[in-house]
């Protein structure tokens, strides 16, 4: 379990390097929302909160979904608040869908 956390932190370190190089400035609000976005992406990708179910490729698809969604919401000019609401709705919908699919069997 500790190894998994360490791997996660190493990946985040790599991500932070890329992000700071890409954006070109550093700020203490730089990674704001990254934790919740990553959780959202994993949940949309079908990883259960209780663990033990999910896959990395599906989580990557979830990342693409969340990222496309948020950037398009930005393009069409929604507020940050509205973007957060829509992201939350997407996560709720994903969890509901997965749990419905579980129960239907």
């Amino acid at each position, binding site marked *: 379990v500790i190894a998994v956390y360490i791997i996660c932190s190493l990946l985040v370190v790599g991500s932070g390097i890329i992000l700071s190089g890409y954006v070109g400035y*550093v700020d203490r609000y730089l990674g704001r929302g990254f934790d919740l976005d990553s959780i959202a992406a994993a949940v949309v990708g079908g990883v259960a909160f209780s663990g033990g179910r999910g896959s990395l490729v599906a989580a990557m698809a979830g990342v*693409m979904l969340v990222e496309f969604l948020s950037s398009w919401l930005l393009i069409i000019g929604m507020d940050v608040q509205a973007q957060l609401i829509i992201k939350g709705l997407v996560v709720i919908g994903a969890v509901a869908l997965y749990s419905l699919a579980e129960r239907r069997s």
Partner: protein
Amino acid sequence: VGQEIYREIAVLLAGVPINLSGCNVFVHPYIHREPFVSSVGQKSVPARPLSWSPRLVIRRYGVYCSLALLLLIALVVRPEVYRPESLFLILRSASQLGMVALGQTLVMLVAGLDLSVTGVLVLTSVVIAQVGAGHKQPDFARASDLACLWRIDRPGERAADHQAQRPAVCGDARHAGAHSRRAERLHPGHPQRPGPERSESAQSVARTAAGLVRHLDGFHRAAGVRPVHDAILVAGSTPSAATARRLGCRALRSTAT
């Protein structure tokens, strides 16, 4: 043991068991079981027949289906997002979230949640920035100076004008107090056009903010849309109507980064 390792890797990578050994030497009934149960030390159970119940489809392919649905909707509603530079921008910003989500997925697979992602990310960025700046004395004021307002892209202005444009530094609601007072002192009365007597701090703000504007500008140009906001509030705090009036903006919107 080799089969177990292959199977774990395959399930971890694809979520679907694949026979990675390339031949049928390692074929085992367990391989065709539903993922994902860590099975080290378990007895193998007989295979379940592969079925196409909706439950299985949703669980395995729901993400891909909804992603395709989203892409289709975007294709219908706003086809200009399919320009290649726009797609590359989105992919590039997805790579960072992708790495974070990769680690987060691993943590969630063992029934945990890593909430330290933000902190580690910011710490890494700051350390990298300082290392890249040549081991200089850390300038913590610089980071919070970035909580400044920046006018961007009124319709009709050319993109090249923004690089020449001076930063509009002013405090926002969250950083009211020292920084706004300092900004006022630096640029009294003329937030958009700071005078030639700008201090080192104001210059650093100008540099970073100019970089940010170039970044956002490229984003908008690549997306092929007119930016909808007159000002972008860095650090995502809530702009007040007073600052909007002071900057002469019609509307203020805030964005995360």
